[in-house]
């Protein structure tokens, strides 16, 4: 037996990779490697105050910093017996919408689209799709602005804190945000059309399970204390361990998750498949127009799901601004009612369900368990990739075609930015 090592075409930077091992037409192994260095965040927060915990855990990821912050706040506040007033809830929803828009616009326009349209990056894409890129950047900028206004700065803003906010944005700024959001909707709608027009390969389609937070109010939403599963079950988030069943995988610094022994998918596509029917307004119309049964079997529709969610989020912004402004007085930060307790915070990060589970003892974190979305989709990522590679190999596809298809699948899951660009490591074992 001879081993042929096919070096990756592009330099591998950063922290993710794809490894494919094959012998003839037989696939030995298909791996999505998470090579991100280990940070042991769960051990670092032990012995810290809740405020310190929030400041640490949000730094797990710069894209979903606010989802981490939000999940942590919810988990910690449950543990500490804190009920935040409605103004705080509304402002938190607004910051969360900002993050969804920021993350989705980055992923859809700057990372995924260049792939489909055949460009190495968005700047190169700008030559032909100038106005689209400009508007996409404007949308992303707006989203960053929402995050800055609500959280204090673009990334790792400390303003959302345990029990409330340090400072509330001024009315004029919020009204301006609502106005800008309205103005962005036509572009977002156009983007849905553009993405819906791209052909989605179907050869690797397969069944799976979808999971997301149940908003609990018959609406579409990004947060809830229960988890809705596509098999019809609705489970309390406190039972998250029975849903996720984290296990170690030697090629991944992120743990893999299985639901009832099977892979599952989280993220925009899971939310749309589970709750899409509940969308109303323009987003609801677009969902009804574009959704079809293939969404249940093909992760690449996640790109379209994200585009529709952007329309939903933009429509949601002005309602949320109204909800914030409904309360003229800025509530002071709510103090804990107890110093020990347990709590699980679950929110929808842009790329899926995020859990922060805590036990607080005498005011300090005694135990923490954080389950990130990418880890939950990992088994599905590998499942779909494997199927695609098997079929492509049997069709005699060449390395670069396989590499591109694998990348498209991985990237569709929007796993995490540094993992989602150009990172295929391809090894082929061929008989001599």
């Amino acid at each position, binding site marked *: 037996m001879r081993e042929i090592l096919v070096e990756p075409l592009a330099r591998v930077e950063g922290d993710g990779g794809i490894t494919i091992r094959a012998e003839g037409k037989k696939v030995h192994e298909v791996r999505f490697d998470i090579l991100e*260095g280990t*940070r042991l965040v769960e051990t670092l927060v032990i012995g810290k105050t809740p405020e310190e915990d929030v400041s640490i855990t949000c730094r797990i990821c710069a894209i979903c910093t606010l989802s981490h912050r939000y999940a942590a706040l919810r988990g910690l506040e449950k543990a500490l017996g804190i009920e935040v007033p409605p103004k705080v809830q509304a402002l938190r929803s607004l910051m969360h919408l900002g993050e969804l828009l920021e993350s989705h616009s980055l992923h859809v326009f700057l990372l995924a689209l260049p792939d489909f349209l055949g460009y190495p990056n968005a700047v190169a894409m700008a030559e032909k799709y100038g106005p689209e890129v400009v508007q996409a950047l404007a949308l992303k900028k707006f989203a*960053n602005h929402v995050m800055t206004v609500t959280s204090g700065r673009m990334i790792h803003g400390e303003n959302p804190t345990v029990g409330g906010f340090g400072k509330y944005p001024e009315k004029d700024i919020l009204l301006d945000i609502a106005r800008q959001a309205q103005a962005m909707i036509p572009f977002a709608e156009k983007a849905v059309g553009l993405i819906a027009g791209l052909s989605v390969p179907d050869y690797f389609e397969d069944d799976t399970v979808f999971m997301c937070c149940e908003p609990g109010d018959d609406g579409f939403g990004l947060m809830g204390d229960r988890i809705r599963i596509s098999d019809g079950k609705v489970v309390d988030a406190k039972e998250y361990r029975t849903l996720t069943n984290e296990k170690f995988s030697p090629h991944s610094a992120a743990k893999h998750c299985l639901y009832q022994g099977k892979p599952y998918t989280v993220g925009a596509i899971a939310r749309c498949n589970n709750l899409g029917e509940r969308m109303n307004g323009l987003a609801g119309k677009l969902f009804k127009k574009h959704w079809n049964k293939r969404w249940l079997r093909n992760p690449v529709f996640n790109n379209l799901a994200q585009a529709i969610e952007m329309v939903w989020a933009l429509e949601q912004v002005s309602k949320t601004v109204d909800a914030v402004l409904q309360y003229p007085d800025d509530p002071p930060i709510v103090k804990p009612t107890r110093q020990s307790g347990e709590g699980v915070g679950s929110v929808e990060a842009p790329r899926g369900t995020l859990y922060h589970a805590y036990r607080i003892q005498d005011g300090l974190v005694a135990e923490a368990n954080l389950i990130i979305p990418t880890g939950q989709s990992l088994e599905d990522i590998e499942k779909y990739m494997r199927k695609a590679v098997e079929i492509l190999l049997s069709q005699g596809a060449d390395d670069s075609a396989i590499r591109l298809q694998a990348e498209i699948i991985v990237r569709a899951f929007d796993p995490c930015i540094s993992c989602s660009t150009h990172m295929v490591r391809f090894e082929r074992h061929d008989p001599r």
Partner: protein
Amino acid sequence: MERKKLDIGLYGFTGCNGDQLVIIHSEDKLLDFFASANIRSFSLAKSDNEQTPLDIAFIEGSISSQEQVEHVQEIRQRSALLVAIGNCACYGGIQAMELGREGWDRRFQSVYGENFFEVRTPIESKPIDAFVAVDFRLPGCPIDADQFFAVYSSLIRKTKPQMPDYPVCAECRWRENECLLLKGQLCLGPLIAGGCKAVCPSHNLPCVGCFGPVEEANVSSEFALLKEKGFTVEEIRRRLRIHSGSGVLKSLKNLFGEV
């Protein structure tokens, strides 16, 4: 002033990618940025990256595996100037808050058990300068966009950038905030390098120290002051360690003997 465009690379190691994202999020500057130099490598923003000799390498993230050690050494070898951006690269970031203490192995095991990785050999996370020489540091978690572009502009003109010699408090006063220290809160402002425009105190929240120590931090005075306000040494030290990583080890050693 026409000059040859420099060859530049941006690299991310262990961290949240926030510093590279700060650049990507600077929509207004992005096109000028790409036009100002030959961006040979920027994994977060583009895929046609090249492994070429560089005038300046910007490194984000801390080093947390043997493979990363080799990679950063390789980058150093082909870069005339190496600039650490962000607290992870400068001081190790949050993952280096326990630096200098025992127990990394134990903590590793408590997360991953007896398992080992096939593709990486993890080590305790450390800042870049633990492995290669660093020519310039731009701290922040994440970095401040204005500061990055100012530093970047200087560097591509081949001059040493100017960094604030004052702590967060100065910026806090410029912004006319109420001093949280005087209100009895554990604010690290006096010890932390300016550059963030005092965002946290401007939101009525104490500075948690995410820009790392200011060069001349008067650590003993701040400890004395906070003790007077009722905080324990352990609380203050813990807070300071969260973001300042390797940056405060020496001061803490001077103050308390051990770290």
